[in-house]
């Protein structure tokens, strides 16, 4: 025995068996979870619901009194389980789009990277590199550094570490990255920190590889 309930899907009143309804509801919930972080999630779910309503309408017009589990099963089979549908809208907008869409790709701020500045340096260009990164006067950074040098001695150590760790801007592209774009915001800074750490890791790996090569040659 099955209870038949009425559901409203895409504005259509559909008579459906209770079991079938539960299956359908679970399917739509899985879809909602699947597209959770996708821009336009509501549109996608809406489109799919309209398609489901359409397929049900066709089925009902063929003379069946209500939708049952096998009908729902067929619909899900036709549309495909959530995991096969690929959250494609999460991808960035196509870069070769003409007109206004290309603009949103590079606004500079996220492109800025921390380099030592070879064109304006007292010692290693650390201070002016940092100043470039935050878009402030290098003199201010130098003053802070001097205060740190004198007060605790940490400044000197920090400076030397920074000298080693921060790469020198060599190519014109690196120079552009160093000063290009807009001043850093806290968010983009956080994002860049991740990238810097990646780069640092790579440099560490390169260095240890060189050392290994060096020692293995000696043997």
């Amino acid at each position: 025995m099955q209870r038949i309930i009425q559901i409203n899907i895409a504005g259509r009143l559909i008579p459906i068996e209770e079991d079938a309804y539960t299956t359908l509801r679970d399917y739509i919930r899985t879809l909602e979870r699947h597209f959770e972080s996708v821009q336009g999630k509501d549109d996608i779910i809406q489109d799919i619901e309209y398609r489901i309503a359409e397929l049900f309408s066709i089925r009902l017009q063929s003379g069946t009194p209500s939708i049952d589990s096998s009908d729902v099963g067929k619909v899900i089979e036709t549309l495909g389980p959530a995991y096969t549908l690929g959250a494609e809208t999460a991808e960035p907008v196509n870069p070769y789009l003409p007109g206004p869409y290309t603009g949103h790709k590079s606004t500079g701020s996220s492109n800025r990277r921390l380099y030592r500045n070879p064109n304006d340096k007292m010692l290693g260009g650390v201070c002016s590199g940092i100043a470039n990164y935050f878009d402030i006067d290098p003199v201010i950074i130098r003053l802070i550094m001097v205060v740190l040098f004198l007060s605790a001695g940490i400044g000197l150590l920090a400076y030397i570490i920074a000298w080693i760790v921060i790469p020198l801007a060599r190519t014109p592209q690196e120079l552009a990255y160093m000063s290009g774009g807009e001043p850093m915001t806290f968010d983009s800074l956080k994002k860049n920190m991740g990238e810097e750490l990646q780069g640092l890791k790579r440099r560490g790996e390169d260095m240890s590889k060189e050392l290994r090569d060096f020692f293995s040659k000696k043997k």
Partner: protein
Amino acid sequence: MNIENTESQMRKGLLELCILGIIYKENEAYPSDILEQLKQANLIVLEGTIYPLLTRLKNAEVLTYRWEESPSGPPRKYYSLTKSGLEFYHKLHESWTDLSNAVNHLTA
């Protein structure tokens, strides 16, 4: 080597171009129309894959849509190309022609 997997990757990559092509030819099309044609051409297996694509193209302002009442089912979303969408489609189609020529040449 799984041939079906490779085939499905190929089809997937071309789906966007084909959807735009159908809409271009029909001037206006609603998803079930598009699905019908894609299925006949063996380009799509699971219907659900088309909806995220349509939404993405709509969000990128390649496509736009209008609602129309249907005599039998729920209202339908009729998709059409925007002005820049048209340009996008022509460029994409051109790339495809070049690509398919190149591939045919290489694999002939």
